[in-house]
Structures are given as structure tokens and as C-alpha cells.
């Protein structure tokens, strides 16, 4: 049963299995284990980024396609929900319609980009995605009447998902709409992750790997490489859009900075590389470590700066404003010591 859910893709490392189970348990019980607003925020973000990074791994790690448009698809899903809720009222129907239309729009756009550019060299595809993503970001900030421009959009979500909605108590925890909202994020993320895990372990997933390894030979044994690449791109875009929709439902706000910025694209790249490309589980590890670092590294550094206040130089190094420096260092070290990512390293043994 478990093997079936995992599509027969074992973690193949004891340490990795333990890590994955710990992350799963922590996320599944987050409202009970870490009841604070901030920590629930972090847990939801981890869930969403696991899906976002896993959908990017399908492209980069499994198919060998470099895309810079992944945040654009994420943003399309987020804006889909935002527009649905803004214009159709804060009903579950509007939320669902916005989600599905966002995913559809992302898939159609990916299809267009794919058919237009996947026939030619991979670098051309990368450049086209960069151009399209920049164009969309500009459009979103220009059409402020529809998108709220740089300010983004605030909107109401169905009441059952807001803190104002109260259901009673379970194990000492007040079950509010916020908790329900978290479980919506958690279970949809889990389902999407397992779906991606199935896809990469399907016959289709094997062809993607073959294309990554040797596209010339894949074509020569009868696979129409362009179609496989295009389908992978569409699927990856649609899942990224669904992650974006979850994010928009969770935050009750969308804006260019939270969903479309190039910074998020870089974050995704870092998470996929740190976790381990072409492994899916790397997305879980990479996203968890990265989001935790993003949220708690600054606090940790504040503590370290205070503790070393009497020493020379160190307090400056640990100044919370330097957190990006440390994150960068963490990244360089992890790429240097684990070129195949944390998952690759764990699987290879010591």
C-alpha cells in the first residue's frame, strides 16, 4: 500500500527515510505541534514549496530542460484564484474555478512556449522562458486595474478557511478556519507530490529520463521527443500553478513580489540543487531546509550575534542583516560537498 502510494520509489537510504518521515509527521501535525502563527505560516510555505520545487524537478532533474518561467506559472495559479475570488465573490466555487482556470492557462501557455521552442536547442527554450516570464511580470504590473499592479490584490476567501470560523477543540487546539485552511494546503500538496512521484515512475517518466540521457537515441528508438518534452512542460506548469493557487488561498493576498519575482525562481533553483536533482525526494529536503533557513536563520543569527557581542568581528558577521551571505555560503558549501544534492549523497552512502 505505502509502496503503491510512493509508486515503488523507495527512499533507498535509512537516513533519508527517517528525515522524510520526520518532515511528514511535523507537517501533518504542525497545528498541534507548533501552534504559533509564525510557525504555521512556515509549515504551509514548506508544503507549497515542496510541490513547486518537485514540479520544477520534473523538468530540470528528469527531463533536462532548463526553464526560467516556473514562478510565472506559480503566479498564474495565484492570480487565477485571486481574480476568481475578487470578481465572483468569496465562495468555494469561485475559488475552485480560479484554481482550475489558472492551471489551464498555465498549461496552455506552456504548450505554446513548448511547441514554439522545444524543437530547437535547449538553450533557446531557456531564453524564451526568461523573455516570456519578464514580459508577464511587466504586464501584471502595468494592468493594475485588473491585477492591482505592484500593490497586488487583497481578497476574501470562503469564511470556513478564515480564523474567524470556529469549529471547537481537539486535543487542546482550537480548530479554526485557519487550521482547516492549513489542512487544505497540506493534503492537496501531499496529493500533488504523490502524483508527481507517480509520473516520474511511470513509463512516461522513463522516457523523460531517456531524453535527458540521450535525446538523439530516444528519437532513434521511436520516441517523439518534442511531444514528451512538451507534455512534461505542460504538466510541470499546471502543477506549479496549483501550488500558486494554494499559496494565494493561504495568504489571502497576491502580489508580484510573493508570486512572480525572479528571486523566487532563484530560490526554486537552489532548493532543487540542494535537495538533489532528479530524485523528487530532493524537493522535500531542499524546500524544508531552505524555507526553515529563510525564516529562522535571521533569528538564529541574532542570538549568535548577542552571544558573541564581546568578541571582535564575530558580532558583525552574525548580524541578522547578513543572513543572505550565510545562505549563499550554505549553498556554495552544499554544492561543493554534495554535488548530487543531499538525497544523492545519502543514497550513495558515506
Amino acid at each position, binding site marked *: 500500500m505505502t509502496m503503491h502510494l510512493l509508486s515503488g520509489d523507495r527512499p533507498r537510504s535509512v537516513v533519508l527515510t527517517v528525515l522524510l518521515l520526520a518532515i511528514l509527521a511535523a507537517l501533518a501535525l504542525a497545528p498541534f505541534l507548533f501552534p504559533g502563527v509564525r510557525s504555521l505560516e512556515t509549515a504551509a510555505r514548506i508544503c507549497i514549496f515542496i510541490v513547486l520545487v518537485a514540479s520544477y524537478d520534473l523538468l530540470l532533474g528528469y527531463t533536462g530542460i532548463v526553464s526560467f518561467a516556473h514562478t510565472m506559472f506559480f503566479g498564474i495559479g495565484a492570480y487565477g484564484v485571486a481574480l476568481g475570488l475578487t470578481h465572483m465573490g468569496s465562495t468555494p466555487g469561485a475559488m475552485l474555478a480560479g484554481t482550475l482556470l489558472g492551471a489551464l492557462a498555465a498549461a496552455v501557455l506552456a504548450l505554446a512556449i513548448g511547441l514554439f521552442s522545444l524543437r530547437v536547442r535547449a538553450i533557446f527554450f531557456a531564453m524564451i522562458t526568461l523573455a516570456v516570464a519578464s514580459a508577464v511580470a511587466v504586464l501584471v504590473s502595468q494592468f493594475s486595474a485588473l491585477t492591482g499592479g505592484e500593490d497586488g490584490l487583497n481578497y476574501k476567501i470562503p469564511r470556513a478557511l478564515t480564523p474567524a470560523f470556529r469549529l471547537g477543540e481537539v486535543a487542546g487546539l482550537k480548530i479554526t478556519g485557519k487550521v482547516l485552511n492549513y489542512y487544505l494546503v497540506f493534503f492537496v500538496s501531499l496529493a500533488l507530490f504523490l502524483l508527481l512521484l507517480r509520473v516520474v515512475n511511470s*513509463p512516461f517518466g522513463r522516457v523523460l529520463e531517456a531524453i535527458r540521457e540521450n535525446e538523439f537515441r530516444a528519437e532513434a528508438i521511436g520516441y517523439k521527443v518534442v511531444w514528451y518534452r512538451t507534455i512534461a512542460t505542460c504538466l510541470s506548469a499546471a502543477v506549479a500553478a496549483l501550488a500558486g493557487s494554494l499559496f494565494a488561498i493561504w495568504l489571502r493576498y497576491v502580489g508580484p513580489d510573493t508570486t512572480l519575482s525572479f528571486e523566487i525562481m532563484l530560490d526554486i533553483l537552489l532548493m532543487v540543487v540542494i535537495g538533489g536533482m532528479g530524485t523528487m525526494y530532493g524537493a522535500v529536503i531542499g524546500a524544508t531546509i531552505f524555507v526553515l533557513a529563510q525564516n529562522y536563520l535571521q533569528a538564529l543569527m541574532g542570538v549568535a550575534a548577542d552571544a558573541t557581542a564581546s568578541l571582535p568581528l564575530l558580532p558583525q558577521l552574525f548580524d541578522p542583516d547578513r543572513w543572505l551571505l550565510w545562505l549563499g555560503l550554505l549553498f556554495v558549501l552544499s554544492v561543493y560537498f554534495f554535488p548530487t544534492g543531499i538525497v544523492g549523497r545519502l543514497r550513495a552512502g558515506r
Partner: protein
Amino acid sequence: MTQTLLETHGLTVRFGGHVAVDAVSCAFRAGELTAIVGPNGAGKTTYFNLISGQIAASAGRVTLLGEDITRKSVAERCRHGLGRAFQLTNLFPSLSVLENVRLVIQAQRHTGFSLLSMAASHTELTVAAMAVLERVRLDRLKDQPVSALSHGNQRKLEVAMLIALDPKVYMFDEPTAGMSVDEAPVVLDLIAELKAERDRTILLVEHKMDVIRSLADRIIVLHNGALAADGPPAQVMASDIVQEAYMGKELTDV
């Protein structure tokens, strides 16, 4: 009356001013093994590339099983019955031996677009792939990544991929190049077995005369991209052009 499976009509390709394959017209019939010989750079591999579609022809046509495939993609030609093994080993290096062959069988049976089934649950693909691996005696190495195989075993796998494809037209480009004397016979025996299936045709680019002598029903000679001789082995081997080419003498224009 034996059936013509593959035919090229005035097939030509120019790279800049250089004519690499020059108006080659030739028909390949079922049950026949045709050896293609010629000095280095004669255009043998390029002729193969034109037939299997890796490069586009400047002029001329290719027909496969009676259908014009000149404008078809590599994948379409393959699905139509053309199988090609490559001169330089051309596999999926970090995938296992079994996975390499299974990918071919999967292409053959059109299961590639199945997204939601588990690859491991398609046991029929694995069984068929194992049968091929047993035939080339690579079954015990099935879980090894291809990059860990010896050169000889990679060549065997190259042939296994073609057998798994089960095409109407087999194209081998120096299948035993770089193999040791005790490895080569395995591959040559396999080609002889394929030849016994009378409904196929085999094209074999080969430099070794003893191999050609034992396997070929017919020899064609390419010289500077053009068809210089075509006929039964004894006749072609006795011809001036082959005598000169393989005695190490300068080739003269014919």
C-alpha cells in the same frame, strides 16, 4: 519474387561544396544481407544517416516498405520499421542495462504516453527485455549502469537494442569495431541469426573482409560518396576497385 523493403533513389547530400553522398540508387530486398564497404570517409555513415533521417537529403528519395519516408522524422521512420545501431556507442549511460532495452520495447508497444501507471508494474516489458538480454548474454549484467560496462558489452547492448526494436530493416554500422577477438563472434552470430529470419533485410557497414565473406549475400562499394560497385561478394571482391582499396593502393576514380 523477393520483396523490396528499402530503396534509395538518387539519394544525395552536400555539405557546403562537398558531396558526401552522391546520387546513390539502391534497393534492399527481404532475406538479404548487404555489406556496405568503402574507405574511411567514403560516406557510409552519412548514407545511413540519410536513410534513418538524422540528416536531411539535398536531393533524392527514400522509400521504406513502399512508402516515401524522405520527409519523415527519425522517430516516424523507426516506427515504420527502420532500426539502426550506431558506429559510436550511443546508449543511455546512467540507466541500467535492463532499462535501456526496456525503453526500446516500451517504444515498440506504445506505452510511453502512460503517465499514471507504474513502470515497474508493466512486467510484460521486463520479461521481453530480459529475453533479449539473454540472447546477447547480458542478462547477468542487467542492473549495471551502462556506463560501467566494458566496450565490448556496450557494443553487444547496442545490438540488443536493435533486436528489441524488431525492425524490418536492420542497419549495423561497424558492429564489431573495437571488440576483442573473443567478443566479436557473439555479435556476428546474432547477425547471422537475424539473417535467417527471411522477411527482413540487413545493411552492414564493415571493414573486415572475413566477416563480409562469411555473412554477405551482396556487397555495395561506396567511393567518394558514389556507388562504385554492386553485386555478389565473389564478383565485387574480385573487382579492381575492391582489390585496390583493400590492398592499400590508391583508389582511382571510376
